[in-house]
Every structure is written in C-alpha cells, then in structure tokens.
C-alpha cells in the first residue's frame, strides 16, 4: 500500500463512519435498513482488509463504494436526508471507489482476460462515478434543471422521445453525414492519386491543402445553405468540403510512404504504374488513409450539426439543439448530445475496426 492508498482508505472509512452515526441526517431516514447494514458491514470489512495485501481490498472497496452509492442515490428522493450524513457517505464511497481504481491500476498489465477486463473496468468505474457524482450533487443542491439536468432526467427524456431523436438522427447522420463523408473522402482520395502523378501539382497543392486543413472551413456553412437549400444536401456539401482536405493531405503523404527498396523491387518485376499503385503504394498508404478516415468521421458530424444552425427543415440534430436551447429544454439538448456522442464514437469505432482488418500488418497492431 502506498501512502496515497492508505490515506484514501482511512479518509473513506472516516467519512463512512461519520455517515453511520445516527442523528446526522443520514442514517435515520430513507435508505432501507438492510442497505444501511450492508454499508456498515462492508466498511468494517474494509477496515479489516486494509491490513492485508492482495486482492481483498479491491473487492471490499468496490463493494463499499457501490453500496454507498446505492444508499446515496436512494436517499436523494428525501429532502430531509441530505444532511452531513448524506455528504460524508457520498465522499466516503467516492474515496473507496478511488481506492479501488488506484489498486486496480497498480496491478501489472496482463494480456489475459483478467488484464483486458481491468483495462475496461477502470475507465468504466471513472465514468460511472462521474455520473453518480453529477446526479447526487445536482439533485442534492437543487441546481435548477434548466442549467444542468441530472443524468436520470436526461435518460428519461432520451427514452421518452426516441421517435423525435430517430427522425433527427436519420436527417443529420444517415443522410447528410454519410453522403458528405463518402463523397468528400472519395474525391479527396481520387484527387490525391492525380496530384501524386504530377510533381508540380503536388508541390503546389500540398502547402495550400495543409493551410486549408487549419482554416475554419466550417464558416462556409451559411454559403452552402444558400446554394443548396435548407435540406440535407447543403449539410452534405459542408461535410464534403470539410472532409476533402484531410483526406487529400493524408493520402498524398501516404502514397509516398512506400520505401525505395519496395519500389525498386516493383520496377525489377517490370510493374507498370497501375499495378505498382494498386499492389504496393495504396496498401502502403492505408494507415494514412485510415487516419484521415478517422479524423473525418468526427469532422463530418461536427460539420453537419453546425451547418444546421444556419437553417434547416424542422428536424435534424443541430436544429433540435439550437431550438431546444432557445426554449430552455436543456434535458432534450443533453439527450441529443448523448445521441450525437454515441453516433460519433460508434462511427469512429467502426472505422477503427475496418482499419484493423485492413492494416493488420502495421507495427502498431502487431501483438507481442
């Protein structure tokens, strides 16, 4: 046990102990007696376990933190319960969770199932505790829901308005993002192959392409809305322009990634331009191309959503966000953001999976 872990354990026990003192506003009320005894039991078990090395302390601190969290959440409905006891129980179980994370990440990395599980469990615990703290603090201190709604309320809104969210998702993601992404990436790649053939163009276009990737291209959104109308076509156009330059720059860099040795080898095989392009240079460029595809997956969603701020039909994720903000329905905004986040990371994850399948030979994927 490091000094930090000792401190975490002691502070967690102290805070939980305070919470268990009757009459401090925590123990006398809401949570079922059984839960209360469970917290008490796990706390005393933790006090016993800190003196042992090994995994016992991880399990007990996890147990204490989850029981404590359950008690805190169930006490939230009761206004009278939010005394000193409530807060010290929250702090105590949070510290216990921290302790378990510290212990878990101190364990050596393993490539076995347990190691992989740990690698997922630690960030997951962090995320869950972020939600628990958000929920508990926002509800216990009565933060107005128009400023920051608690996660439970956002979840209710999310599950309650699935049809609206689906319509928005279809408009923004399935139409604008996908169309724009495919056109933008394809045209970027085709232009890159053309540019790569002509050295003069390559030298002239590359500095401009690099500059363009740094510019606030999103600003063309109002122009595209004027040109292509309010529907999804204008959003797709913004996405095309935004995704074009990263693809161009990365593909050109990738096409020159094949080494001299390999190129010489292709020449000794008397391979022409096309066969050496398809058999050597495009495969060698794949890591760069996938890098651009990944960058673009995020950019595309941002482009489509922001373009909707400039005018849309009466649905679409960007439209919903900007109007619901205006009507102070912040929970709906959060629900839409949650959908966007889920869509964005799923999109990114899919591209990464495809990348893994196509560039399995790359050093970054070789295992041990």
């Amino acid at each position: 046990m490091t000094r930090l872990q000792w401190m975490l354990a002691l502070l967690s026990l102290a805070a939980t102990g305070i919470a268990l003192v009757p009459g401090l506003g925590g123990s006398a009320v809401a949570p079922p007696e059984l839960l209360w005894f469970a917290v008490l039991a796990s706390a005393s078990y933790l006090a016993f376990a800190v003196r042992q090395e090994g995994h016992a302390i991880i399990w007990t601190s996890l147990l204490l933190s989850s029981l404590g969290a359950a008690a805190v959440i169930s006490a939230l409905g009761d206004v009278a319960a939010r005394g000193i006891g409530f807060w010290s129980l929250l702090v105590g179980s949070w510290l216990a969770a921290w302790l378990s994370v510290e212990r878990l990440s101190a364990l050596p990395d393993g490539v076995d199932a347990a190691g992989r599980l740990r690698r997922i469990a630690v960030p997951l615990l962090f995320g869950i505790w972020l939600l628990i703290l958000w929920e508990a603090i926002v509800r216990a201190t009565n933060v107005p829901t128009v400023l920051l709604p608690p996660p439970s309320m956002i979840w209710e809104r999310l599950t309650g308005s699935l049809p609206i969210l689906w319509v928005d998702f279809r408009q923004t993601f399935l139409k604008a993002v996908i169309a724009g992404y495919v056109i933008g990436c394809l045209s970027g790649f085709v232009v890159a192959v053309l540019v790569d053939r002509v050295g003069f163009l390559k030298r002239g276009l590359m500095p401009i392409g690099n500059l363009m990737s740094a510019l606030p291209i999103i600003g063309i959104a109002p122009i595209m809305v004027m040109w292509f109308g309010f529907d999804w076509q204008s959003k797709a156009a913004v996405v095309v322009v935004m995704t074009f330059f990263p693809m161009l720059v990365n593909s050109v860099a990738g096409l020159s990634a094949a080494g001299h040795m390999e190129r010489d080898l292709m020449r000794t095989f008397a391979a022409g331009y096309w066969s050496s392009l398809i058999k050597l240079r495009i495969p060698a460029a794949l890591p760069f191309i996938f890098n651009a595809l990944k960058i673009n997956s995020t950019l595309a969603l941002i482009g489509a959503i922001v373009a909707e701020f400039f005018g849309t039909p009466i649905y679409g994720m960007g439209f919903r966000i900007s109007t619901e903000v205006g009507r102070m329905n912040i929970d709906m905004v959060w629900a839409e953001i949650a959908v966007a986040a889920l869509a964005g990371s799923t999109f990114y994850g899919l591209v990464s999976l495809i990348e893994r399948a196509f560039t399995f030979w790359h050093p970054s994927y070789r295992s041990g």
Partner: protein
Amino acid sequence: MTAGADYSPEIAASHPVRRFFDWAWSGTVLPVLVVSAAIVAIWYLAAIWMNAPFQRDLFTRADTAYSTSELVRATLSQERPVLPAPHQVLQEIDKTVFRTKVTSKRSLVHHATITLSSTLLGFLMGTALGIALSVGIIHSRALDRSLMPWIITSQTIPILAVAPMIIVVLNAVGISGLLPKAIISAYLSFFPVAVGMVKGLRSPDLMHLDLMRTYNASPAQVFWKLRWPSALPFLFASMKVAIAISLVGAIIGELPTGAVAGLGARLLAGSYYGQTIQIWSALLVAALLAAVLVGLIGIANRIVLRRMGMAQ
C-alpha cells in the same frame, strides 16, 4: 551559399535563366503561385457561371438587349451575388478594414478583435488545462488508466454541438461576454494539447530516465530537466492544432448569442440578410487570422527550439 561547396560543372555550364527555371520548377514557390492563380481563375469563372442566370433574368425583365461582355461585367458586380468575385470580396475587406473607423460596428477589425480575444483567452485556458492534465496523467497510473480513454473517446464526439448550450446556460447564470466563448475554445483546444503532451512527456528515452535516476534526481528535477524540454516539440505541434480549433470554437460560440459581434456574428447576419459579400469577407478574414495564428506559433516553435539547440 559558398562558391566552392556547390560548384559543379553542370550548373556552371547551364544558362542562368535555365537555372532559374529549374529552381522555380523544383521549388515550392512557383507551383504554389500557379495553383493559387488557377484557384482565383476558377473562382472568377464559377462566379460568372453561377451569377449569370439571375443577371439574365434581370436583363430580360428590364427588356435590355445585352452582349456577352456586358453580361460578364454585370455578373461580377452584383450587389448580392450567388458567388461574389474575388475582387468584390477584397473591396469589401478593404472598405470594412481600412476605411471604416475601428470603433465602428461595421469595421471588420472590430469584429475580428472580439473573436481574436476570445480565441486567445480560450487557447491559453485550454493549453494550461491540457498541460496540467497531461502532467497528472504521466505521474499517476490511476489517472492514466481512468482518464485517458475518456479523453480519447471525447475526441470522437461532436463537441461543437454543446456550444449553444454552454453559451445560453452561462448567460442564464449571468456570465456573458468574452468568457463563455473562451470556455468553448478552451474546451476544444485542451484535447490536442493533453494528448500531445502525454506523448511528449513520455518521449524521453528509458536510457535518459535511467541516467536521471543514477543522478538521484527528484521527480521535479526529472520533470523540469528532462521531460519538459523533450516534450516541447510535441507541445508546439499540438498548440498549432489547438489554436486553429480554438478559433473555430470562438466563431461557433458567437452564433447563438444572436449575432451581436464577432466574425461568427458577421457570418450569421450575412446569412440572415443574404449578404454574400459580407459572409465571404468575414470568412476570408477568419482564414487569414487562422493562418497568422498558426504561423506565429510556428515561428515561436522555431525560435524556442533553436535556443534550446534542437533546431530542425
């Protein structure tokens, strides 16, 4: 260039004009100029082509006969063209930058300064936060394990979608003006800095770290004398990304406040009233601003690295 080192018979034999052409052809200056000129030419052609239908319509309604040259001239001087010609945009920039008082609300300098100040404030906040996070992450395994995956995931979500909410909610609490926009910029710009600096602070060789250990260096000494200097190239690379993205954040942050001031407000107002020339001039100034900011960081990068003896 010293005469002795670069002397070679072929160069001496070739004609100076030929040599100049060789240099221009193989360098980047001429190609960039040619490509830029081609872009401007295409822009003009597109402007004529896109504005022509409306102009033809105007002529037919006024019952005036027109020649092709008149049509072309007219398409390049419309008041609200579909695509303004480059010279119209430049004239607008010239008018709103140099011939309007800086304090006036029509001055583009006025709007650009507003956007620039929130960009810079947000960039500073974001960079500081990013560095602080990366320092925490490299020193604590628990932070690394729990926070890093979320930082990476958060880059895959469309953060800009949150912008209107941050602006409106902070406005409701009573915070308005520069700070909400700066917060959006900071929120966008801290990711590249955090990710880049984690990489950078971990970039020292194991050998060097071992050497520091043999010197019995404290963690603070290892940080300041080894990790920080070797992370600087990474810091500058990520700051280039960060400042560009923080300008985007500031511009987007100006949209939901109802087009009060700033380059984003100019874009929105332009799109409300169909003032295409105004949109394009705001866009061009924003692009210029981004190029200058990224360029400045590039220069700072070169100076710092040269003084540290790490010049590339």
